[in-house]
């Protein structure tokens, strides 16, 4: 049991847990869509005074913020109590490809080359994190949802707009990975 929990979870078990979260939220009268929290936090910070997009009753989204807090706690629990300390189990092919861009084989869940403070506080390192985050926040709101809202909730409801959004997610991801990475890294 301990070993089952501390080793990385299989794709099928993880997928079942994720869709169960979507169904639980539906059963609780809400829907699975994480990026709405970004709008809510802007509202709480007072952005409604500047722009009417943020002038809404954010208290109706309090449940989602509590969910966000839970996600942080869940990440903490996973690290402290459910981890065997092994690096991520990515394929040998990916390790090889990434080494051409100067990335060492994984030592944890994230590459030090991007996410250590040492690289985050260089100009290039900072710009990678800042631009990445900015495009995620901008794109999610423009597209009306992120991976949870479109790829999980929207596709489950056979929504054509969500399919278009997911095609966009992949178009952008492939462009960044195959065209822009060689220029950046």
């Amino acid at each position, binding site marked *: 049991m301990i070993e089952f929990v501390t080793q990385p979870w299989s*794709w099928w078990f993880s997928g079942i847990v994720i869709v169960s979260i979507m169904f639980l939220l539906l059963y609780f009268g809400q829907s699975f869509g994480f990026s709405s929290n970004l709008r809510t936090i802007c509202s709480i910070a007072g952005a409604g005074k500047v722009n009417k997009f943020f002038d809404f009753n954010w208290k109706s989204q309090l449940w989602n913020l509590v969910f966000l807090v839970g996600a942080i706690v869940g990440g903490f629990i996973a690290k402290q109590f459910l981890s065997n300390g092994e690096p991520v189990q990515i394929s040998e092919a990916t390790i090889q490809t990434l080494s051409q861009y100067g990335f060492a084989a994984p030592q944890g869940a994230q590459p030090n080359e991007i996410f250590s403070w040492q690289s985050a506080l260089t100009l290039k390192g900072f710009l990678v994190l800042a631009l990445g985050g900015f495009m995620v926040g901008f794109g999610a709101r423009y597209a009306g949802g*992120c991976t949870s809202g479109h790829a999980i909730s929207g596709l489950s409801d056979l929504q054509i707009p969500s399919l*278009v959004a997911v095609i966009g997610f992949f178009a952008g991801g492939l462009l960044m990975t195959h065209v822009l990475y060689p220029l950046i890294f």
Partner: protein
Amino acid sequence: MRLIKFLLVGIVFGIVMAKSEAFSWYRIQEMFRFQAFHMYGIIGIAVVLGVIGVALIKKTGLRDFAGNPILFHPKDKSYARYLVGGTIFGLGWALSGACPGSIVVNIGYGYLTFLIVFAFALLGTFFYALIKDKLPH
């Protein structure tokens, strides 16, 4: 008390994002390079079961815990916002290796530089609102 259940579901979400390794930049790179089935398997089985479950909810008229009908809200019918917004999202997803959910899971996991990613995701959301009336939707 009303909100505790969302905290618990959120904790499960954080744990599964970490334990599935879907919160890892490496896994996102592997996915966009088509070098493993892992991420496609996670999203694939979730969507297949999701489609079946949502169809059953609609067919049976299942109600939520409070007895209200479970409603699905159709998205606005258009293409520009989903395609253009989606592509911008994808650029950021591949660059930072994180979607909004996995950003906060990483913070909890101890990768605190994701605070920078999170702060700029908020800025991106704010900037969208400032220029949204000028964008095609």
